[in-house]
């Protein structure tokens, strides 16, 4: 079975505004505003418009094996909000 892949909207699909320690993300497709903190914006950017596997994302952020659980949680949250697709 192929590994799950994740994809965020390409750059034009989002408006992102840093507001102090929060980041406001406007999702053009749904018209919904999301509020996020690090590392969500960085994560979104790493898979903007591109399918990435969990391994590729973990590598991109230099995560150790015991940190992958947190990454999976963040990705599943983003999939639940509709900001990220999983396939």
């Amino acid at each position: 079975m192929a590994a799950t892949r994740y994809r965020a909207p390409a750059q034009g699909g989002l408006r992102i505004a840093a507001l102090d320690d929060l980041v406001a993300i406007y999702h053009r497709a749904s018209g919904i505003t999301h509020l996020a903190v690090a590392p969500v914006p960085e994560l979104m950017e790493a898979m903007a418009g591109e399918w990435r596997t969990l391994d590729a994302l973990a590598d991109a952020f230099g995560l150790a094996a015991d940190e992958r659980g947190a990454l999976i949680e963040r990705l599943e949250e983003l999939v639940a909000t509709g900001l990220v697709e999983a396939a």
Partner: protein
Amino acid sequence: MRHVFSVRIGPASFRVGSDWRAPVDQLRALYAGYPAPEGGIADYTVRLSATRPWRRFVRPSVAIAGDYMLPDAAPLPLAHGLLAAEMAMNLQLALGERRFLLLHAATVERDGRAIVLTGESGAGKSTLAALLSARGWRLMGDEFALLDPETGLLHAFPRLVSLKNAAIDVVRAALPDARFGPLMAGTPKGDIRHLVPGEAALAAMDQLARPVRLVFPRYGFTPDARPVGAGEAFVRLTQASTNYVALGEQGFDALTRFVRAVPAIAIDYPDAASAIAAIEAEA
């Protein structure tokens, strides 16, 4: 509708139709100094209808209606017809307006610089705006700040100022020469009396202002002031806006720009004097 009244308040105009004469007569008297809608055509229509035709005579009560309606809005007794008209006018603007981002806030201005006061009902927005107007500030509005997404400037909406309970006497003492509407006792919001904005507010109702401070006042606490970050201000203002979602990306851009440009502060206050001092210290 048997009785009709039209008025322009800043950039928004209203046509109020009523089954009864009294609310329309009261509106006409209180809005006497206001202009008529441009070209005679109002942006919003409000209807004050008898809840049942026969109830126009027996225990008359007012159901409010218009282009935008809240299905659960309870009818009010005719004695509160003026309140019903004001609520209905606010509702049309709150739900129908697309030109501006609406923030549930009072605004005062001096030298083109505007202070925006926002908070939940009871925070003291209307009271503080009225008291500041007694100290030389121009009252731009006590209910809605109208933020222009294109320019980032605020438009005035100086409707009648809705004062509740103890605030009524506080403001009457500060503005002894001002005109007030009838006292409406025992409404769902308590005792209500409307203050007619002064001549300066009406004469300048088409003058825009640049927001320079956002204030979150909170009444009933020991004096305190703390800066509010742009992120928290953004969250609180999305909740305080009636049409943020409807404006879509335009609303997002307008609000993020606003909270980045306008420093915000939360002020707790035990009495009006300390709030006024804290706000004027920010100006």
